[in-house]
């Protein structure tokens, strides 16, 4: 038995026989042709190009419907590469003048192109070499009528081991018999990993030597939960993983059955469960989720890659489409949190690159210095609320003082009045709330709560500011700790202050999807959670399995504890008790 440690790219456990994917070297069956065969060889290339184009078209459509526009764009880039005149010219020239076979001509051309890309130092541009090889491989596969695509030749459920897997290979995995895969290279955010996640195939990447250590036919376990590859496991390990696999399958089957069920704890305590939404990566599967509504629409993307700020009309169209997408269920739109790591391309007044951007001019601070941006966004959102019966909520990011809230409230009232003068009124009252992520706002919340209709706790930044830890700095990243006593106590204080005034509180940071922390958040009496679509049913299932009374006891005990370790132990213990 050999265990390799890599990067967990897509969750789940797969067990089965190994199939090794042949490497980047194309099997060139025939190197040269006779001069009389040139015409036929050129004809072969044209036919293969036509066929490949058809495949890419189909692939683009499939990706568009399952994975959203971001990945579909990748496929249209592949189409352009295929039709690139320099590819065509080079290949036909090699056939005509050097009398290379079609396969060899493509192979040599690709190698020449790859060599040029290898010279590039910027890793971002260097990566594109993969896209070119991907297209080239498809082309070669379509050249030879006899040579069936390798993946299609796998006849029984197998685990694919490859040095590197191209996005187009990955897209076709599901239709073939591949039930899991692992690669030597790649990271968690590589295209291949992201595609694996959306296809629900367990995957481990970055294993360095997997393709050398594995022989075709070896029994493998791909542990996509922990990023492990087990080669030829012993009896005990195999039995253990089969048990884990059964449990995961049970949970997955269960998840599908709870879509239409209410979000309540085992003892009937109800919370709202919203979904964070990004229109750029929406999928069919996401659309099937029955949710309480949209809990967080980040709007920064509207301001990126554009030479001018988005106009009221442009924004209105987007918000209208979002409200329709959510079938008029509640939608919460956050005013653009520009600044920090999200800088627009157009110039802004009084804006210089900050030394310390996360504590600099971002969120509402930036909007108050550029009131035109704020008014335009408020108008666009309220205009949408005048048109459709969705319950619309507007969230202010990076609030630290009551003065900021008052400024936005005044602007908000002014915009409402403008619409009133035109004889327009929101169908449902529009709520104005704040994202609580600055500790000062949490501590002095009682001074501003009367101006707010709701609160949302942005735990990612709140924790970062509370413990003064930059998550990107590797020296201190481990100190970013959701179990720190200060985190639970601050969340508690926010919820208590809000509830005294009858206002609701939601959480929209990553900890909302952390099922281990869920009992603590429920016990602190959180009213709503907003999570990514991928985690939605998992979180819902967990809420439905816990006991609210127990959660309350757990939270009360945690609030009295003075160290992360105690709190973590308490949570772990509770988790185990529930499992048994």
């Amino acid at each position, binding site marked *: 038995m050999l265990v390799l440690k890599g990067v967990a790219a897509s969750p789940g456990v797969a067990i089965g026989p190994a199939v090794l994917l042949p490497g980047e070297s194309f099997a060139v069956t025939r190197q040269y042709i006779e001069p009389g065969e040139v015409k036929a060889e050129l004809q072969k290339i044209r036919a293969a190009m036509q066929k490949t184009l058809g495949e890419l078209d189909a692939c683009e459509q499939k990706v568009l419907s399952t994975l959203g526009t971001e990945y579909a764009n990748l496929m249209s880039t592949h189409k352009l590469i295929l039709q690139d005149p320099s590819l065509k010219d080079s290949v036909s020239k090699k056939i005509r003048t050097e009398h290379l076979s079609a396969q060899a001509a493509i192979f040599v051309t690709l190698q020449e192109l790859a060599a*040029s890309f290898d010279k590039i130092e910027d890793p971002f541009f260097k990566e594109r070499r993969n896209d070119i090889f991907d297209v080239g491989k498809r082309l070669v596969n379509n050249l030879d009528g006899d040579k069936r695509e390798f993946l299609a030749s796998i006849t029984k459920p197998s685990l694919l081991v490859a040095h590197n897997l191209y996005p187009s290979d990955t897209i076709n995995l599901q239709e073939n018999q591949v039930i899991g895969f692992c690669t030597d290279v790649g990271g968690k955010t590589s295209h291949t990993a992201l595609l694996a996640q959306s296809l629900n195939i367990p995957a481990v990447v970055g294993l360095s030597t997997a393709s050398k250590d594995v022989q075709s036919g070896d029994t493998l376990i791909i542990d996509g939960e922990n990023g492990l590859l087990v080669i030829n496991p012993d009896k005990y390990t195999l039995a253990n993983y089969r048990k884990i696999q059964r449990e995961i399958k049970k949970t997955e089957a269960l998840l599908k059955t709870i879509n239409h069920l209410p979000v309540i704890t085992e003892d009937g305590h109800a919370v709202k469960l919203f979904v964070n939404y990004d229109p750029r990566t929406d999928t069919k599967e996401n659309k099937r989720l029955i949710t309480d509504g949209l809990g967080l629409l980040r709007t920064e993307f509207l301001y990126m890659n554009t030479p001018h700020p988005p106009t009221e009309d442009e924004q209105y169209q987007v918000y209208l489409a979002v409200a329709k997408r959510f079938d008029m269920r509640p939608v919460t739109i956050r005013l653009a949190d520009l600044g920090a790591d999200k800088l627009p391309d157009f110039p802004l007044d009084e804006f210089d690159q900050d030394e310390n951007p996360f504590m600099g001019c971002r969120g509402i601070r930036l909007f108050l210095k550029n009131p035109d941006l704020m008014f335009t966004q408020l108008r666009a959102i309220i205009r949408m609320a005048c048109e459709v019966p969705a319950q619309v909520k507007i969230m202010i990011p990076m609030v630290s003082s009551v003065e900021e809230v008052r400024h936005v409230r005044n602007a908000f009232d002014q915009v409402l009045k403008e619409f009133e003068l035109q004889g327009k009124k929101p169908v449902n009252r529009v709520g104005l709330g704040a994202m609580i992520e600055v500790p000062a706002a949490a501590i002095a919340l009682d001074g501003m709560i009367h101006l707010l209709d709701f609160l949302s706790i942005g735990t990612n930044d709140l924790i970062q500011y509370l413990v003064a830890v930059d998550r990107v700095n590797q020296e201190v990243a481990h100190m970013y700790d959701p179990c720190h006593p200060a985190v639970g106590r601050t969340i508690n204080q926010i919820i208590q202050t809000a509830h005294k005034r009858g206002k609701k509180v939601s959480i929209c940071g990553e900890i909302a999807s952390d099922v281990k922390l869920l009992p603590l958040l429920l016990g602190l009496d959180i009213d709503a959670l907003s999570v990514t679509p991928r985690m939605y049913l998992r979180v819902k299932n967990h809420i439905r399995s816990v006991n609210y009374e127990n959660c309350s006891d757990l939270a009360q005990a945690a609030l009295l504890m003075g160290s992360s370790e105690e709190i973590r132990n308490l949570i772990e213990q509770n988790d185990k008790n529930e499992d048994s």
Partner: protein
Amino acid sequence: MIQQDIKIINRLGLHARPAAMIAQTAAQFSCDIQLSKDQVQVNAKSIMGVMMLAAEFGSSLRLTADGSDEKEAAAAIQKLFEDKFNEEF
């Protein structure tokens, strides 16, 4: 023949999508269109060529168009850069 210098002002530089837009736009014109950067010259109608320039934010390119519709072609490509390859969402 037209020659002009273009500065790259979109933050991500000439990554796949802008390269695709340049190649598609260039293909609409009959004139010969070349882009060059640091002694590397490529055909603007070739997406791979354009990507190969590895042109990042802040760098400068030279655009050369030669043919009957060179004026229109140069203007159309210049506009792509100016609009920062106005990406859809």
